[in-house]
């Protein structure tokens, strides 16, 4: 399968030539390899999983705190979210749903069990709450998370019923979603 240098160069040149001919958009997703079984992250020895286990035990019923002038709330989803067609990023069962001032904070899971957010994206944190606090720090008291697309203001989250919040999806997979 090894392709000679000349060939590769030509292909790269062809790629560029093609790119010149076509506009940047549309970024049509090429056929992606199919998914394997659902992946459950687990921390390697020395990873954050110990701290996370402690966190999960302590906040099994969720958390709700004021931090940096913002209200951070989180709860663990009981069941797997519905996976919209083409979305490979829907949170699996048992993932955390977090809001900052009622706006969804998109948490991502790292392979070592840590968490990162779209606001603070080039490091990870040991727990969902630590990641959410870091995101609030970054908002700096002046910015708010962007509301999900199509909503001028997100609906208010009922006090005792965070898990009833309907799945929010943003238009392009950008913005934030929990």
């Amino acid at each position: 399968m090894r392709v000679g240098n000349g060939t590769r160069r030509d292909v790269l040149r062809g790629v560029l030539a093609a790119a010149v001919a076509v506009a940047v958009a549309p970024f049509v997703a090429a056929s992606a390899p199919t998914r394997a079984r659902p992946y459950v992250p687990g921390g390697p020895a020395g990873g954050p999983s110990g701290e996370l286990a402690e966190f999960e035990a302590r906040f099994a019923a969720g958390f709700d705190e004021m931090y940096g002038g913002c209200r951070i709330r989180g709860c663990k989803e009981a069941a797997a979210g519905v996976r919209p067609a083409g979305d490979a990023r829907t949170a699996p069962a048992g993932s955390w749903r977090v809001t900052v001032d009622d706006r969804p904070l998109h948490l991502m899971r790292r392979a070592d069990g840590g968490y990162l957010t779209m606001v603070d994206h080039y490091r990870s944190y040991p727990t969902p709450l630590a990641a959410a606090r870091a995101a609030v720090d970054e908002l700096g008291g002046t910015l708010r998370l962007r509301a999900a697309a199509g909503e001028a203001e997100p609906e208010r989250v009922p006090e005792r019923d965070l898990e009833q919040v309907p799945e929010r999806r943003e238009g392009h997979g950008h913005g934030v979603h929990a």
Partner: protein
Amino acid sequence: MAYTRKNVSALTRSEKRRLVGAFLEIKRTGEYDEFVRVHIDHYVSDGEDGLRTAHMTPSFLPWHRRFLLDLERALRRVDSGVSVPYWDWTKDRTPAASLWQEDLLGGNGRRSDHQVMTGPFARRHKKWVVKESMTDGDYLTRDFGRPRDPLDLPTAGELAKALDDPVYDAHPWDSTSGRGFRNRLEGWGTGRGNDAWRNHNRVHRWVGGHMLGGASVNDPVFWLHHSFVDLLWTRWQKRHRGARYLPESPPQLGERQYGRIVARHEEMPPWGVTPDQLEDHSRIYRYV
């Protein structure tokens, strides 16, 4: 005939002016925001299901190479004389560096809200209004050196540890890979302090503001940073002759990374090109 990418500190006044002009023009047409969206949409974390093409994955380097080529092509459609310069952050390490001056990227964000107030990308000129972001602010933000939790740019020594690694990437092919040039350069570590985040990641964190998040492409320095990261891949190839992109073949059914990473000859979304096709850029551009 290949064009050149220069060190940003070597750009002439005219080259800076033309580069800024091209950026502002593709922002005006809306094309630039498409790049911001593509980067956001392709951030799949390695603790989640799904194919990872851009981060925490072997194809981090070819994905960003192709991404940068697309951006550069858009700029060159506006002005065929421009290319994306590189920012050598091991040398230009302070806010006084030429790239942060009024005639190119402008400087740090102001203290109160991190809003960039200087240079052509300041909100008040109305030519660089942020549209695709994680927050509701429509202005570009920076927070050099993260004063709340200070860190420096990566050092040449830190970078050398990545360049010295003779293997492109290694099992488990994600952000926990303990060896391999790719993850050492991408910069995922373990632990909680700032020292855990190295090289590429650390630069994103040092600039701060938009560069800290998934919408990092909103800051034009994103491209200067990735131009240097791209150059580092080329330097690594020269240092380790014959070393190739890994993995050469895809993980098998039943393996943890099956269907989640791009092997050397597999097509890489959203373009359908393979890492193999992107390993050699010498006919397109070269670094000077």
